[in-house]
């Protein structure tokens, strides 16, 4: 994308090569964060970025790695500006590499303008607080962890868990709130940006097929840095994807759903660079600035004044050893507006989607639900389901000690309702698309297994209205 563009400001030789980093000496005015082009003995160009500058010295990370670079035959050209991406609406329907260069055989998209991939922080006074819920048709989300237009809500998963399937189902089934729909499902204002960092080919293929199956492929832009692509390149991938996203959302008024997978691979690339530079690590070898770095990605989400569009982020990350306290999920959880946690235990019991409801959270849910959005009883119902299901866990622990038969009759009913909650409420088909109404009614059926007196989070009026609803479909 930059290729035609250099002015050839500064050219210099390489003094040191270390991992993906080259140290360049003998130059004048090179700026911090500037784009560099590293040219090898055959004249091939690899792109890089300045991480540190001193007098006559620059430290450059080379995205494609440094294999085959020699001190003598390599020279480095600096372009006098930071990294930019051409953006345009016609990039929808296209496939790019991790730096934003088309790899689908099609022509270079015509740039409507060039945008800095680092973006700029959104002024909090220019944000519009997100309050419109997105119906995903998945009860564990819509009922318990409602997704809101303009939210950043990651999936915390583990290797082998069906996070891709779930993300694809969310993207496929996501229905905009009525207010945002213009002529039939809002299709015309909907776009998907997909960024892959270090995932396998079949993962990218799976998403592609899934978008194709729902006929959305022309509304999707894919940025692929796959497992066998250079790892350092993936430091740019989410930024390139979000740069296009910001253009589509805030300048072209589209509602963009962004899938970033796998953020753990991204963080590993960051750790690698940091370790090679000998920086002081904080936890597990990750650099102390991991939080700020992740924030510079996740905060590129939301809605702003003066634009009809929105950015909703669904980052996916795998928790090493299923450990939610690992720095990557931990710092992500501190930045995002909640998290959806997948459970290996539920997965092994054959429950799809295996969403661990208790540690999951949607922080924006509170303003996106209730009267005028979903249904008036929604907040109380979900709080009650949380509280009751938390108690189910205590009862199960007790039952494993004293045996189920020894439980009080109330606790036995808790066990039953816990089962029902996992099988009927959380569990659903991979293509099953429930209305919010169905979801909430299923929740009430689960609660109706418990004695009324146990339901202290819902009001007496709500109990009168919904407790013991007739079974679904029956009348």
């Amino acid at each position, binding site marked *: 994308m930059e290729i035609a563009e250099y002015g050839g400001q500064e050219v210099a030789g390489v003094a040191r090569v270390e991992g993906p980093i080259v140290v360049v000496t003998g130059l*004048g005015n*090179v*700026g*911090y964060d*500037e784009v560099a082009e590293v040219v090898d003995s055959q004249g091939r160009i690899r792109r890089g970025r300045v991480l540190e*500058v*001193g*007098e*006559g010295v620059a430290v450059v990370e080379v995205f494609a790695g440094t294999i085959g670079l020699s001190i003598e035959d390599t020279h480095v050209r600096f372009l006098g*500006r*930071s990294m930019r991406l051409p953006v345009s609406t016609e990039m929808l329907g296209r496939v790019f590499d991790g730096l934003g260069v088309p790899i689908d055989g099609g022509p270079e998209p015509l740039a409507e303008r060039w945008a800095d991939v*680092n973006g*700029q*922080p*959104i*002024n*909090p*006074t*220019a*944000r*519009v*607080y997100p309050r419109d819920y997105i119906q995903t048709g998945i009860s564990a989300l819509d009922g318990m962890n409602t997704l809101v237009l303009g939210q950043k809500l990651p999936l915390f998963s583990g290797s082998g868990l069906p996070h891709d399937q779930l993300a694809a189902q969310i993207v496929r089934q996501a229905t905009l709130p009525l207010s945002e729909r213009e002529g039939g499902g809002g299709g015309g204002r909907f776009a998907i940006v997909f960024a892959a960092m270090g995932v396998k080919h079949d993962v990218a293929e799976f998403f592609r097929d899934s978008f194709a199956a729902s006929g959305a492929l022309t509304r999707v832009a894919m940025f692929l840095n796959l497992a066998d692509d250079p790892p350092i390149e993936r430091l740019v991938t989410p930024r390139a994807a979000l740069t296009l996203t910001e253009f589509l959302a*805030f300048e072209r008024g589209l509602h963009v759903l962004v899938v970033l997978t796998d953020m753990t691979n991204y963080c590993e690339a960051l750790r690698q660079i940091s370790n090679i530079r000998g*920086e*002081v*690590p*904080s*936890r597990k070898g990750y650099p*102390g*600035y991991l*939080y*700020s770095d992740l924030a510079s990605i996740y*905060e*590129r989400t939301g809605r702003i004044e003066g*634009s009809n569009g929105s950015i909703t982020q669904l980052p996916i990350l795998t928790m090493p050893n299923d450990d939610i*306290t690992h*720095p990557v999920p*931990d710092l992500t*959880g*501190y*930045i995002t507006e*909640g*998290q959806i946690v997948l459970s290996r235990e539920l997965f092994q019991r054959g429950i799809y989607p295996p969403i661990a409801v208790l540690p999951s959270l949607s*922080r*924006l849910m509170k303003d996106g639900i209730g009267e005028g959005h979903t249904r008036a009883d929604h*907040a109380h119902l979900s*709080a009650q389901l*949380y*509280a009751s299901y*938390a*108690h189910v866990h205590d009862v199960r*622990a*007790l039952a494993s*000690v004293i045996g189920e038969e*020894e*439980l*009080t009759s109330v606790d036995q009913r808790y066990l039953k309702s816990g089962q029902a909650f996992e099988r009927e409420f959380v569990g659903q088909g991979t293509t099953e698309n429930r209305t919010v109404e169905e979801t909430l009614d299923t929740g009430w059926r689960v609660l109706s297994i418990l004695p009324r*007196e146990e339901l*202290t989070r819902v*009001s007496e009026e709500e109990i009168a209205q919904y407790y013991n609803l007739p079974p679904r479909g029956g009348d």
Partner: protein
Amino acid sequence: MSKTSVQVGRVIWVNGPVVRARGSQRVGMLEVVEVGDEHLVGEVIGLELDIITIQVYEETSGLHPGAPVYGIGMPLSVELGPGLLQSIFDGVQRPLPVLKQRSGAFIGRGIKTTPLYRKQKWAFTPRVEAGDVVQGGTILGVVPETLLIEHRIMVPPDVSGRLTWVAPEGEYTIEEPIARLTPLNPPYEGGSPPSTSPMEGGQRGVSGERALTMFHRWPVRRPRPYRRRLPPSELLVTGQRVLDAFFPLAKGGAAAIPGGFGAGKTIAQHQIAKWSDADVVIFVGCGERGNEMTEVLQEFPDLTDPRSGHPLMERTILIANTSNMPVAAREASIYTGITLAEYYRDMGYHVALMADSTSRWAEALREISGRLEEMPAEEGYPAYLAARLAEFYERAGYVTTLNGAPGSVSVIGAVSPPGGDFSEPVTQHTSRFIRCFWALDKALASARHFPAINWLESYSEYVGEVSDWWREQGHEDWHALREQALEILQRENRLQQVVKLVGPDALPDDQRLILETARLLREGFLQQNALDEVDSYATIEKQMRMLQIILHFHERSVRIIAKGCPIIVIHDLPIVNTLVRMKTTVPNEQVEQIDEIWKALDEQMDQVKKDYM
């Protein structure tokens, strides 16, 4: 920064927010400088011979060796004067609405603006006359800054003298003089003071006469002086039951809220910002989410102060340096916030400062320290982390101000420990400098017990100090009720260990009653839904009545069970459900409804007693 600048050096090294320059040895430590052609604002954080180390408050992308560095001749300072309230600033006091006018929805670089709006006229009413001798802190006059807060224009702390002229009542901008004085004893030895004194509140005339305006500057890293520190003794009423009744914070005290992500730190701080009886609230969003600041901005103007009926925004100042804004400005944001807090304290107000999150501030320190290649102590944090935390929390306090009035700054700092593990350095050091520890608990949060403040791990060392205050409010029994309730909760905790092994049925009924009452305390009293209109805030009257009636329930049940009544009978009484729900059914204005519940409780108990006598 409107002062004139001179070039003091040239950049020789750039690494993110940290820049080194070579140049003049007259540049001062902590002096503000401007870097590069875009005049990015920074602060000197290290000097060694002719090498100047600078932390830059803006993105440094494109900055290169050879770029000029300009000195401003003063330390990082804030402007103090009318117009602060209802504002939202970034970490170095740039008003975000002005940045929006200049660069749109995204924050651009190198934007220069004054923190306070210069053109607005404020209605000034003098409180002094020509001829009066005034000192630092003397109130020259007052300005109705908002309907809620009267802004008291003070003589800057380091100025004193005899007034030669005082402006008559009228409307003035903050730059127009409102008084003139001649110093009695020059505050500086050896003749004329340095012309770049940052504390200056106006221009100096020929005859040593000095004009005072409605605003002055103060360096953020220097605590503002006061006359005397007093022991905290008044409760900071927050309307949050678990805090006021169990783990009280005194005005002028310091508290920490540690907790993993999603445990409820921000909501707790928002609740205190909304409902506490502080006169002025300063909320520092330090390295947190943009949407959370937007939420406050959109919500507070519509919320009314339960005491005055005015919009809450009229007493609030927001400082927003979100997680994706420059990290050095995040480091500064805490100091900017606390300096504004001290300024309103000096007027004689009770100020509450919320910092969300101090961990992000500590990480900013760590990031800058790392780029300076300083020797790290624990987990990469610099060795001076503890000292910086101590300095910050020391700025909380209840004082007699320079003008003799009482005022206070209470500090409530959120702490975000990695993995929710309190043994990490920031939580550990913080706990040495605060006296109120509100420990958030992940398990409670995931069961949606909010606020998820763990009653066994939390503590307040102000309990003794505020006991008299409760007594003065007519609640002599607060201390006893608190002890009794906490004891029941502690006994429940021990019994739960047994229940986990044998089930509740195996316990004798008097012990099962403990479980029953503890449940009432947890669900009916400690849990408080921030999103429920009635429950969000509870007056201390309501809090005490609720606690009394739950404990009354307990006492009566104890006696009845001793008579042989099975616990199940008590468990099934309708009053139990009523008690769990009274937090949402009884509005603050109608606490007397609890008397009715009390009557019903006694009737039901009397009936049971009759059945089992």
